[in-house]
């Protein structure tokens, strides 16, 4: 390929001198070089994104098991994997849990994150240090923090119940009761997502020109009204990015749930993502695992499209 470019470039000068007859050739050269510029990106996307997605789709129509790894045979089974997935009594549970987990996490993360971002916009002693401290959950390895949370939330000797016990509260079965486990897991995920929300929203707030507030305060718009008419419209595009990315990140959460409850008790914290993991890497039913994760990919894809259309709209505005 490089050879053809060299010759093309080498011939370019005489062609240009010759005038008209060389034009089409020059056009070919520019279009080729245009493609060459995007080739690395296309190659990268194809190898690291396209291939896995296509492979995953193909796999979901195959009986892909431990046997396949040795023999290379993966019999085509049509939609059997999807049928098994949708027919499973677990599917409805996982869809509901995924929805609750995602909505619960995103709403709380966003509200708390925005509150903290607004709070840190005022400069006060140690505000920089505290803002740095806020990033802590992000800096810890997930496996470590979920192990610590598991201790904190333990029913008999966990720190949280010991603390609540000081006020005479009976021990709360955080990770043991099927009704509470999902709430506990969402709580930990909120803790984990706050730094992301705060950081992005804070930087969004930084870009709001202070003159706007000065001008508005002359007109009497302060406090809530200033937020409603100045802050919110100015950071709206940042907000949409935070929420859509947050949704995509939350949908695929596996590690925290596996670390805290392993999807239990009695599947009460099993989501689409953990179920896909379980099918593929515990049961070694890679076909069914792929089918479940494709459902998840479709949902994420919808949100990705929303994200793209939102960001395009923001540019147009």
């Amino acid at each position, binding site marked *: 390929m490089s050879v053809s470019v060299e010759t093309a470039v080498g011939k370019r000068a005489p062609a240009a001198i010759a005038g008209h007859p060389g034009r089409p050739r020059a056009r070919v050269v520019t279009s080729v070089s245009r493609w060459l510029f995007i080739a690395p990106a296309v190659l990268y996307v194809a190898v690291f994104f396209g291939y896995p997605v296509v492979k995953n789709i193909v796999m979901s129509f195959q009986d892909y098991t*431990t046997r396949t790894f040795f023999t290379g045979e993966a019999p085509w089974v049509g939609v059997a994997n999807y049928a098994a997935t949708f027919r499973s009594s677990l599917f409805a549970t996982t869809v509901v849990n995924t929805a609750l987990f995602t909505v619960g996490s995103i709403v709380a993360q966003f509200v708390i994150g925005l509150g903290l971002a607004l709070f840190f916009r005022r400069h006060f002693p140690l505000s920089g240090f505290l803002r740095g401290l806020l990033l802590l959950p992000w800096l810890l390895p997930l496996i470590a923090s979920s192990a610590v949370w598991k201790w904190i939330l333990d029913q*008999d000797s966990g720190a949280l119940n010991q603390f609540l016990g000081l006020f005479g509260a009976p021990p709360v079965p955080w990770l043991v009761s099927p009704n509470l486990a999902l709430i506990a897991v969402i709580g930990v995920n909120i803790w984990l997502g706050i730094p992301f929300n705060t950081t992005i929203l804070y930087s969004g707030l930084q870009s709001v020109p202070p003159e706007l507030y000065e001008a508005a305060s002359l007109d009497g718009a302060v406090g809530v009204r200033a937020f409603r008419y100045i802050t919110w419209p100015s950071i709206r595009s940042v907000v949409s990015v935070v929420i859509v990315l947050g949704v995509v990140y939350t949908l695929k959460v596996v590690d925290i749930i596996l670390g805290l409850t392993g999807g239990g008790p009695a599947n009460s914290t099993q989501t689409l993502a953990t179920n896909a993991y379980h099918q593929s890497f515990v049961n070694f039913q890679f076909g069914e695992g792929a089918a479940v994760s494709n459902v998840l990919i479709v949902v994420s894809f919808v949100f990705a499209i929303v994200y793209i259309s939102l960001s395009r709209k923001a540019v147009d505005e």
Partner: protein
Amino acid sequence: MKTSRTIALLAGAAVAALTMTGCSSGGGSGGSKSLTIEDYYQASYNPIYQRCAKEVGAKVTINHVAGAGLIAKVLQQASSRTLPDVLMLDNPDIQQIAASGALSPLSDYGLSGKGDVPAVTAAGTYKGKLYGLEPVTNSIALYYNVSMLKAAGVTPPKTWDELRTDAKKLTKGKTYGFAMSNINTYEGTWQFLPFFWSNGGDEKNIATPGAAQALQFVLDLQNDGSMSKSSINWAQADVNNQFIAGKAAMMINGPWQLPALKAAKGLQFASVPIPTRTGAAPVAPLGGEGFTVPVTKSKDTMALAGKFVGCLNKPAMQTYIAGVTGNVPTNETAADAWAKSHPDVAAFVTTTKTARARTGELGPDWPKAATKIYTAVQAALTGKASPMAALQAAQSQSQ
């Protein structure tokens, strides 16, 4: 272009020919041969391998993989044809991997499981052919805190009724009378099996009255307050920690916990076989890992690997491994001698004699049944369904 490819081919063929001659000459002289071993044990196993390496005249490269990652790694190696020469597998996995065609039958190397506990050999057998040999095995039994039982005036239980009353008596303050793992993994299933199997439960259809009775019994222990509700989140290591911390007076666990238990200061403990409803001998699951010889490129290396596995399974070697790991020799004569000299594992030796292999009935389909069993246990213990309803729901689950 074409010429260069031909040259490369010729060169490759020449190299291949050279290596082949190199191999065969190496086989003649011996000593220079090497074997790769893959397991999920710790470095404490290395001296064991070195002994057998010396005996068969091979150099060994040992690769310890983290427990949970072993099967994933094996699958990866199977697809890239880079399997180790000697592969350790957890016994319920042997049939599944054998079914994929990745393992070679051990009869090719003149090996058999003669003299070993029959159920152990059954676990390593797939479609009538032996693929894995387990030098040592284990099972689970009931550990108890000697001083706590003495203080409560209780003798170790033999029946469910005794276990239930004893556990109640032993529950005081922050100490629960009884602890076991009911976690939503295969570990939870493994711990429930002695109750399930001893009472007539069967993995082909788990929704039977006997199975429901067993599950009801565990639920009763929880409802009595004798077993923590957290047991549904405890792995076996967590159960052991509760026992060491004095938060449980009795627990179900295996002999691999012995080193930790012995290291605990001031802890006096002993073990008995797990109580059954009638007081008969329990039917517990067999644990332990088998050694297999994967199909690799060189027949010579595979034969050497077969020799190596044979060495590991010799009775004298089994006894040596048992000493290092705290497990029970698989050879029945060696096990009896071992029980006499090591009273702290006597309960496990007794248990393994009547124990069953998890894959004995369903073979490679065992994992599906195991998932159903822990699903039912979790549903019953969290109060989502009655024991019978929980078992029925899990049995009909299409997983």
